[in-house]
């Protein structure tokens, strides 16, 4: 090799090294290091969900496609007729980009197939949740380490099983388990709590135990999966002042809200209580007028459009809103005919019109007998027909389906805050 060629060799090295260094630096700083799904805090303190480098508004539905004549025990994941294929197409046409599954049980291959089918065919992502043992008999002993460990094992198994599925969007821990801290639903206690005579302090003790447990779960999930946010499922904003102390590691809250046409001060109130982004993870309206005793699709569409308008008003970037909302998952995709009389199989084939509970926020039919105006079997934005099509109950979209679809295409917002 001549001196000239050596010089050329060195010259090449000296020219290449900086480029390589730059490339290494660039790669280190490139989005490759970012989680696949994460929440970005903007300069104006608004929150934005980022999915694969792009802002993502969750336009979702709660999904539990139980056919007529079956109940919640039905393993729809393994249904050879694949109801999610028909549903996914309809969802995509409407503009839905996310489904929420409250909990996944059973054959993990079947679950993965559903997640993949929806994602690959329709671009629909899946939120996976866990009840955190809330419905276990006799009651969820969150103060008991054994119970905690059992739930933790189940949750971490779920995360390990599905975290690498490209269609997974996030995890939701619990649903409205916080009400058990008040003792109103599935009350639980411990020896230490029982010794405390002041019920307010008892409530605080339960809240500390429960939210600390959720925080612990969150940290464990973060260790094995940095690609998906972890949400704290919560009924309303009840108890979030305790979450602010004990569950600081959750990435967002996923709240169940049934406030009729308005979410009221929800978004601003959350900002003051527990400054985390929010997914309105369960909301909506039934479409049966319990007063006039007939289906009223207009009523359901009215409430849903109003609710989506408020969700959009509080997304990041809207200067008149709180900027902490990431979207919502409507309750629910299809009606569930088994709900009214769960223990009576004959009733699962009947679309019951008996109202189960009362909520004055849904005021059109509040004058129903006993003020019971909420019809649990009529929340679907898609009705089920007893006729079969492709082996499943024929899907009949309701007016809300079309109204929300049009709203998503062209969201028209109220620029002034509606306090009423």
């Amino acid at each position, binding site marked *: 090799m001549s001196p000239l060629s050596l010089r050329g060799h060195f010259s090449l090295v000296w020219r290449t090294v900086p480029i390589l260094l730059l490339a290494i630096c660039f790669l280190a700083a490139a989005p490759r290091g970012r989680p696949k799904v994460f929440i970005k805090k903007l300069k104006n303190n608004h929150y934005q969900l980022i999915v694969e480098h792009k802002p993502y508004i969750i336009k979702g539905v709660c999904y539990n496609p139980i056919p007529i004549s079956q109940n919640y025990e039905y393993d729809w994941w393994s249904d050879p007729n694949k109801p999610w294929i028909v549903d996914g197409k309809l969802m995509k046409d409407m503009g839905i980009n996310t489904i929420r599954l409250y909990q996944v049980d059973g054959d993990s291959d079947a679950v993965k197939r559903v997640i993949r089918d929806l994602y690959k065919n329709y671009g629909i992502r899946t939120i996976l949740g866990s009840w955190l043992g809330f419905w276990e008999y006799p009651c969820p002993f969150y103060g008991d380490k054994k119970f905690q460990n059992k739930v933790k094992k189940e949750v971490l198994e779920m995360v390990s099983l599905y975290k690498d599925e490209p269609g997974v969007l996030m995890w939701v821990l619990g649903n409205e388990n916080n009400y058990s801290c008040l003792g109103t639903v599935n009350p639980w206690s411990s020896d230490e709590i029982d010794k405390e*005579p002041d*019920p*307010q302090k008892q*409530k605080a003790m339960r809240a500390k135990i429960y939210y600390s447990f959720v925080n612990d779960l969150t940290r464990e999930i973060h260790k094995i999966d940095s690609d998906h946010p972890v949400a704290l499922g919560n009924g309303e904003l009840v108890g979030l002042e305790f979450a602010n102390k004990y569950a600081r590691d959750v990435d967002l809250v996923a709240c169940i809200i049934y406030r*009729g046409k308005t979410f009221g001060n929800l978004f601003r*109130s959350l900002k003051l209580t527990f400054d985390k982004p929010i997914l309105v993870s369960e909301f909506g309206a039934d479409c049966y007028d319990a007063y006039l005793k007939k289906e009223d699709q207009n009523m359901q569409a009215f409430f849903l459009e109003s609710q989506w308008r408020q969700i959009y008003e509080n997304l990041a970037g809207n200067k008149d809103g709180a900027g902490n909302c990431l979207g919502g998952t409507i309750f629910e995709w299809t009606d569930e005919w088994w709900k009214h009389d769960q223990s009576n199989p004959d009733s699962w084939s009947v679309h019951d019109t008996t109202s189960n509970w009362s909520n*004055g926020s849904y005021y059109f039919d*509040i004058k129903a007998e006993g003020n019971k105006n909420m019809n649990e079997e009529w929340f679907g934005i898609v009705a089920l027909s007893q006729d079969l099509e492709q082996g499943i109950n024929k899907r009949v979209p309701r007016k809300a389906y079309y109204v929300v679809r049009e709203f998503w295409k062209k969201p028209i917002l109220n620029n002034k805050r509606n*306090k*009423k």
Partner: protein
Amino acid sequence: MKKWLVVLLALSFSMPALGLAEDKPKEFMVYADKNARDNHFIPSGWMGDYGDIKINDQSSNNPHSGTNCIEFVYSAKKTQGKGWAGVYWQNPAQNWGSKKGGFDLTGMTKLTFWARGAKGGEVIQKLKVGGIGIDSKAVYPDSCDIEMGPIELTDTWKQYTVNLAGKDLSYVSGGFCWVTTADLNPEGFTFYLDDIKFEVDASLKPEGKKQESMPFYVYSDVRSSKNHFIPSGWMPDANTAKDIKYENANKEDPYLGDTCIKIAYNDVSGTRWAGIYWQNPANNWGNKDAGFDLSKTTSFTFWAKGAKGGERIEEFKVGGIMGEFSDSDSAVIGPVILNKEWTKYTIDLKGKDMSYVIGGFCWSTNVDNNPEGATFYLDELKYE
């Protein structure tokens, strides 16, 4: 037809119309004097404890103008067991929305009336314009339902105004109404009304909700005109009346003033829980656009004690009524175990949006935590 005849006929038709347009009335009388030709409504709608009311519609006792005024004597004897009474001026008489008799008062912007008490200090709980048939399935409901009050009368004539600017007055069959309660006037009272009329006042603007100044009372004392909410929302249903004994004017041991509230709860009906909402107006479960703007508040305070001590109240709450017109926020404390001595409780409202409050205060309890029932006292319920 001759051309001049056509012109004459046209003129004869157009003249009255022009005259009407020019003479659009500036006022519309509800009551001027007994048998005045321009009285348009009749004080025929007696409500509540109607047996407690006597009327003299041609009292010559110092009328504000003309030769007479209306004298009402309210005995507060609760003859019909209601605890409240009132009178609607209707057209035609006894019309609760079943007959077509309303007037189109579009253009009027206020209702004024003159009032005085026999002694001074008499409290009228509310004055109303419209509101007939609003809550029922009336065939001819009024197009508006406007309230003001409470007002405390003086012993000399004073004019009061109800702002109607921006309201839909296209159909008004309930021209005027007053309502009061035995709690506010336990010994009854005599008062006088005169010159009740709708008027045009171009300077009046529609009333937005004004931010109320603090303190703002839910309950101060039974006779206080500062009480702004009515304990009308008995929960969960009609059976609650069996379970709760409610005294608005208990004098055993008030924390402050002459009276406090005494509540005795026993699960007689088997409903297992009960509670009371203080509402504005009465029975408003979010179906009426009403309430107060309490944006200036930072806390709600009240005093409470149990008859024995140890009574457990599940919730003390402010706001939280949800309906077509929902409270803008809510806040709650509880469960609370009451002491035998008066104790002050505070609901922190910092950061809350209290700009629209229909449900001023609420408590609820249940038989599970009070198997023997619970008797407790409340006083000085106020926003600060």
